[in-house]
């Protein structure tokens, strides 16, 4: 049985890398006696994947994992799993998923970020300038050298949410992304500012919606109009 789990990665686990997190899940599943399906082949590996890799040092209340179990899963098994997870890793919800559905990783389209800032007034100007810019060139280190990309199309929303907080809706996934650190640097903010991921969204034909909200039917994924979603321009 295949399921998607939404979980929070909080203090003190913000320092775990993506690989550390994968190992943590695999071991927790074995502690909970919940057998996972293995891939076929010479070096079989457990079928566990994630929607997106969270940057090290950042917390999140909306991480998603995609697991193929070798048995039926109910709330009882999920409670058992929660009981062996370390402090800082809290399961927020889950749903069964058709075996044929695409992976979360293939569908993820954006993430919402919350940034704690010292003063909203101080960022207001640079924020407006940034949103009005047609091009926002940033440099990224690639294996073959430094590459310059235009970040602007990947910044979907940017707004002051409170006197001490900024919210960003940034593209994520294979089709191009903006990293929170890159946007913060453009705003002249410290990369170490307190960043938290508050939602991870799948991209479905120009719409963005949470993996727990979308409609799933065999291979088909569609937007659930009764729940929150975003429409991309």
């Amino acid at each position, binding site marked *: 049985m295949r399921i998607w789990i939404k979980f929070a990665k909080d203090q*003190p*686990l913000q*320092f*775990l*890398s993506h*690989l*550390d997190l994968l*190992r*943590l899940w*695999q*071991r*927790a*599943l*074995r*502690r*909970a*006696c919940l*057998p*996972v399906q*293995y891939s076929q082949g010479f*070096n079989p590996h*457990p079928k566990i994947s994630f929607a997106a890799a969270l940057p*090290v*040092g950042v917390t999140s209340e909306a991480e998603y994992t995609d697991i193929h179990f070798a048995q039926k899963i109910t709330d009882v098994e999920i409670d058992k799993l929660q009981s*062996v997870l*370390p*402090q800082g890793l809290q399961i927020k919800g889950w749903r069964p998923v058709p075996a044929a559905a695409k992976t979360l990783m293939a569908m993820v389209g954006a993430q919402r970020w919350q940034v704690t800032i010292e003063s909203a007034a101080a960022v207001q100007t640079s924020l407006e300038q940034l949103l009005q810019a047609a091009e926002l060139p940033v440099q990224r280190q690639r294996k073959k050298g430094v590459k310059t990309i235009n970040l602007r199309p990947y910044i979907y929303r940017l707004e002051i949410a409170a006197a001490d907080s900024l919210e960003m809706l940034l593209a994520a996934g294979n089709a191009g992304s903006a990293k929170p650190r890159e946007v913060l640097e453009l705003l002249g903010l410290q990369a*170490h500012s307190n960043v938290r991921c508050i939602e991870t969204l799948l991209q479905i034909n120009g719409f963005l919606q949470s993996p727990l909200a979308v409609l799933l039917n065999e291979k088909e994924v569609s937007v659930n109009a009764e729940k929150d979603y975003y429409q991309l321009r």
Partner: protein
Amino acid sequence: MKNNYRQYFWQHILPHVEKPTRYLGNEVNAVVKDHQEVALRVALAFPDLYEIGMSHLGLKILYHIINQEEKWLAERVFMPAPDAERMMRELSFPLCSLETVTPLAAFDLVGFTLQYELSYATILQMLTLANIPLTAADRGEDDPLVVGGGPAAFNPEPLAAFFDFFVIGDAEEALPQILELLTENKTAARGEKLRLLAEIAGVYVPSFYREQRSKSGEYLGTVAAAADLPAKVKRAVVTDLDQAPYPTDFIVPYGEIVHDRLVLELFRGCTRGCRFCQAGIIYRPVRERQVDTLKKLARQMVRSTGYEEMALSSLSSGDYSGIEQLVCELGAELAQEGVSLSLPSLRLDSFSGDLAEQVQRVRKSGLTFAPEAGTQRLRDVINKNITEEDLLQAVREAFAAGWNSVKLYFMLGLPTETDEDLLGIADLARKVVKAYQQSSGRGKARVTVSVSVFVPKAHTPFQWVGQISQAEMLRRQALLKQALRLPGVQFQYHGVQTSMLEAALARGGRELVPVLARAAALGCKLDGWDEHFAYELWEQAFKENGLDLESCAQRAYAAEDPLPWDHFDTGVSKGYLLREYQRALAGQVTKDCREGCLGCGMAVLLDEEDKGVCASADMD
């Protein structure tokens, strides 16, 4: 900062260091207790990085023994990596335990694992970072007692001044006795505590023993300074390993460590009698755990950790009396949970394709064999007791079972070694490649030949031998490099200077105390890591104290010379070691003592009733 080291560390240091998961301290199965609620607080210090120290079984055993008692607590501490260390020094932040971020100086007892000589300078760095006075003589009533234990404690004299006491031998029974005594005498003065501790079997208080030297400075021996102390400190021995405590709740690290797996200790001790091997002497006699005990432990370990791999550990796992039953039954059980078994210490002559396949049901990992020397003559000298045919048979079986890569371990610079012995290594490698072509032929074989430099160790038949010179080591390495330019063969070797330092420290005495202090002051640390090892600084530290590092490594002792570790009784007599040394020089092999007692002396040290393999010993 005084009361909130944790908050300070998490805010100002952790976010800025490499691999912060080394310092989190809240891993699954880590034990956190309230310092106010316990009678005794112990810091278990491993003088290397987290990923090395966390791979060490001894530390897990001690952590378990102490924490299972409600009245005591044990927390871990490792050497911080250079980036974190620099930051801690700049911010004057003291070395703290992982679990509760408590400064080391606030513990009652700080215990260091003495696993290898190359960690000695790191111990001194850790004491300095912890603001604990370096020498026992300078510590006051408020400072913790500093204790060392582990294999290197069998010659602790180079570290004598830095430790309040040492534990020689198995800790499973000695440690609770020590902690019990310290709990009962909490308010006693340091000197009084040490006097009481010295009465426990296996405890050595270096300040109670004096080094004697002739007028010309020649070493004459180390003697007890008071009449009621034993002339020789007897090693602590756990007689019933099956009943001894064993940790099933391994701490599960977040980041990857060197040996990232469960370890199940099948037995302690080895009867093979390889003449270079210190472990083969200091862990005598063989004491096994029962198959049922092991299976039960294994089940609990998987349940409490969720690990995907378990290593069956011992000095020579093929010698375990129930090996086939255990591997077959445990392998089948663990495979159902996707857990693989590995057998890292399998002698060539006990290897079979069947056994290997049983083990590698889930994942096939690499195979490693240790012929140690390239010719039968030299293997006879070191009493390795395996033949070329054993090796070829083992690799043929491995290749037939589907492996295509093997690693072969050898040593360079063994006593009596000639160029012919070295060329024999290349010859063996060639034959292994050929065996692959004959038995399978699919693709290419990968044969890795790893050659380390021989380091003579205390309490072994080769304890009297010096190392060859640095120039000679380099010449022999070059010879091997040339000879091993073979298709399908990869040659691995390390710098010779770390081996020289290891040799110089392994067989020295108290004259090395100021050398170590100076080396640490010069900044030496983490010497087992090529990127941190600074040979020139060590040479300087030796020179400034009137010693020459290379001469110390090359020093040969005469049979009648008093040795700096003569006042430690491992159970094996010096006469036996000498006899083995003479047989080595004559090229005579000595059989496995399971086939008949060789009178090494071990049987005498043990209690009458329970002697392990020594139960059948011939006592004359």
